[in-house]
């Protein structure tokens, strides 16, 4: 018998009556997700342009007069901060989290839609404040994305006047906005799952987003505290982080502050942040591989446990970013150990992805290509992480291009490849249209080969001792001429990859208007978001009745079944007791 629960009541949905209510001040999680995504992509494009400018300087030093050392440092800083916080975090949690959570757990919307809407507008405000820093006297801060004091707020560093203040205010706003969203993601997963959707029937995507949201809620306060304390140091003359210091021949009023205290706070946020970005990507890539290899995810419970364990462990490794900071050397022993322990659950995930592909009915569609590309870059970045996790190897490699190559592979390129795969995968649901496959594949191959051409040589540069963050290498005896050649080729590859992204955007816009109609569930996916009565899903997602879930999200290629997938909301057939595998 059909039951009517409180959640079936459609009256609290507040259907919008005007265009502005529907698309601007929207309470609908799907519209908010798109707002988040478009804003994140827009500011991400700014960061992409900044990276191209950086590469122009590094590849062809002295050629471009408009890039002076000050500008170069500002490009480095803003590129890093925008990519990590304002693009990746916002897109994966604000964008995918918002779109997927209610649809995948069978809810009509987030639990608190108004707070959810507020979350986006505060995020937008944070982005605007950040952008404003480009236009203030002195420009944005050039203190490096880690914003280490004392140099970030002392004279001589670009943007030490206004830029750093706007950066810190923007970060504080971002955290406030994210907290509103994160509270919604967590409570929606805990409270608004439809009938039958137990926690262990949730797709891996939701597990990744759920655990990453909890982590972000606990880690971002560290950045918040650090930002507020540095604002006090900058504006109110306190000495939380600022030691006694002579700047430009003048004794400043600060004394006794601890720059290492800032580093601890920053990295207590900063390292979990790596996994805040990685875990949603882990979850999403699991679903992409499973759907397009037509096979249940190998070791589902292990995958979930690994996500939870990685999330917990990531709070105990932060000081591996500080081996050369002057902290007590005994810390290094502990943090190296905890860092290497994380490799265990991470390796489990990698093996399980590979074993899911093993003997699967693989359809090499564009989303799966990106997922496989992710496996390459992630394994690569993960292995170089083992080098840097060891104190004795890290010390000589610190602040070299090896580090740049490592973290771009593991937390730059890898999540971005998953994001591309995810956009190709869910675009038919979001818009009701399919992409042009040829352009999609072209985009994939240029991007994958391009990023390898960029970041693989950086590891060799690092071994040579080429330092990161330097405006120009100059006449440096230990750096051979070949390093300059490598820098030129990296720059050319970077420009090609950046230009190739126009293929992606052109394809997206063309598909939005002219792409073939996707119809219902074009990939034959079993998870709930593809089972909505309307494509794209209407406001309220599920029509008059919420769905009821009878099985997990990975019933693919079940022997004896009529199709090669069984949707989560399909009741069990007579006599069906167990998954035949």
């Amino acid at each position, binding site marked *: 018998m059909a039951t009517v629960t409180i959640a079936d009541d459609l009256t609290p949905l507040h259907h919008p009556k005007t265009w502005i209510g529907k698309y601007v001040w929207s309470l609908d999680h799907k519209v908010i997700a798109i707002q988040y995504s478009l804003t994140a992509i827009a500011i991400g494009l700014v960061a992409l342009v900044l990276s191209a400018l950086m590469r122009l300087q590094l590849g062809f030093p002295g050629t471009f007069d408009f890039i002076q050392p000050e500008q170069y440092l500002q490009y480095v800083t803003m590129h890093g901060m925008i990519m990590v916080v304002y693009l990746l975090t916002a897109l994966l949690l604000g964008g995918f989290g918002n779109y997927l959570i209610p649809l995948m757990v069978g809810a009509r919307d987030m*639990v608190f839609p108004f707070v959810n809407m507020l979350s986006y507008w505060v995020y937008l405000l944070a982005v605007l404040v950040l952008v404003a820093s480009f236009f203030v006297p002195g420009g944005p801060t050039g203190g490096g994305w880690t914003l280490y004091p004392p140099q970030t707020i002392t004279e001589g560093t670009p943007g030490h006047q206004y830029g750093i203040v706007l950066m810190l205010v923007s970060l504080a706003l971002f955290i406030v906005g994210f907290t509103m969203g994160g509270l919604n993601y967590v409570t929606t997963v805990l409270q608004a799952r439809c009938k039958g959707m137990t*926690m262990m029937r949730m797709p891996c995507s939701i597990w990744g987003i759920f655990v990453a949201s909890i982590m972000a*809620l606990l880690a971002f306060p560290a950045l918040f505290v650090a930002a*507020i304390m540095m604002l006090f140091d900058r504006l109110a*003359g306190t000495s939380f982080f600022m030691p006694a210091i002579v700047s430009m021949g003048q004794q400043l009023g600060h*004394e006794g502050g601890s720059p290492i205290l800032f580093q601890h706070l920053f990295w207590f946020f900063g390292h979990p942040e790596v996994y805040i970005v990685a875990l949603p990507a882990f979850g999403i890539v699991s679903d992409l591989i499973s759907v397009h290899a037509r096979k249940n995810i190998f070791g589902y419970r292990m995958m979930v446990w690994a996500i939870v364990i990685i999330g917990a462990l990531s709070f105990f490794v932060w000081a591996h970013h500080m081996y050369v900071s002057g902290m*007590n050397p005994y810390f290094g022993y502990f943090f190296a150990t905890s860092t290497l322990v994380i490799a265990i659950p991470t390796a489990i995930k990698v093996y399980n992805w590979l074993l899911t592909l093993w003997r699967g009915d693989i359809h090499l569609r564009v989303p799966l290509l990106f997922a496989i590309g992710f496996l390459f870059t992630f394994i690569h970045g993960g292995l170089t992480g083992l080098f840097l996790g060891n104190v004795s190897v890290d010390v000589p490699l610190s602040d070299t291009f090896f580090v740049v190559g490592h973290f771009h592979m593991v937390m730059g390129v890898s999540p971005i490849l998953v994001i591309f795969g995810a956009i190709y995968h869910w675009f038919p649901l979001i818009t009701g249209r399919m992409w042009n496959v040829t352009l999609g594949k072209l985009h994939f191959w240029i991007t994958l080969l391009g990023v390898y051409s960029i970041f693989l040589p950086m590891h060799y540069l690092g071994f040579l001792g080429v330092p990161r963050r330097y405006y120009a290498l100059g006449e440096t005896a230990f750096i051979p001429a070949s390093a300059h050649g490598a820098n030129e080729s990296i720059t050319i590859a970077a420009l090609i990859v950046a230009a190739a992204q126009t293929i992606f955007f052109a394809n997206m816009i063309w598909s939005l208007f002219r792409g073939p109609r996707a119809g219902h569930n074009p990939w034959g996916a079993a998870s709930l978001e593809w089972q909505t009565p309307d494509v794209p899903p209407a406001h309220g997602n599920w029509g008059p009745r919420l769905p009821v879930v*009878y099985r997990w999200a990975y019933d693919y290629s079940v022997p004896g079944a009529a199709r090669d997938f069984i949707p989560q909301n399909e009741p069990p057939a007579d006599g069906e007791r167990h998954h035949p595998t």
Partner: protein
Amino acid sequence: MSVIGTLTEKPWLTPGIDAAAIDRPDNDGRPFDPGIFLGVFLGVVTALFLLIASAYLMRMGVHGPLGHGAGDWGAITEPPLLWANTAILVLSSLAFQGAGIAAGRGARRAMRITLIVGGALGIAFLVGQVVLWRELQASGYFLAIHSGLCTVSGDPLAQPADLFISGNPAIAFLYLIMAVHGLHIVGGLVAWGRAIRRAFAGTVPAGLARSVTLCARYWHFLLLVWLAMFGLLLMT
């Protein structure tokens, strides 16, 4: 179901509707229970204040043997007003507890009175903190943001202001903790305002008792955090 039970479920073995799935009885007429939302939020605030406490202890120099602390930390004499404000917050929390009990029993008049008293005491605490802030300034511990940004002519951010919270970092932490905790109180007052509006509505709205109970929970947490922070301030 326990966390272990949840995580060890074998989803591939159980086609059908799990007995544990949804239809929660505690929604009390509202679509979703804000209690979980509040619980997670208080978790975030706990993390925030724990980090401030860690920073406080590190800067204070308890980790001196590990290389932290500059030896510039000095004891401060707690202003008497700090004790008075703490007492006001305790009373405020008690009043909220009373409101929660009254709401549970359906004693509407008692609930309204205690709710107003609790909120008023909360505002009194906030005012007390502002007075304390001014007292600190009067005794020479200036905030440059006040004396510098507002009164110094020319470009306020371009150069260090004349007056700092210089010297003793314990005072700087006092300002910081008061500011962040003050923001926390303002958040509580917003929730209190919503509860008051509902309490004085013509008809008793569904879930009023629940929102008063949650308000009380928020206030107890507020007090707990303040007591922890107060303890830190006494440690100087």
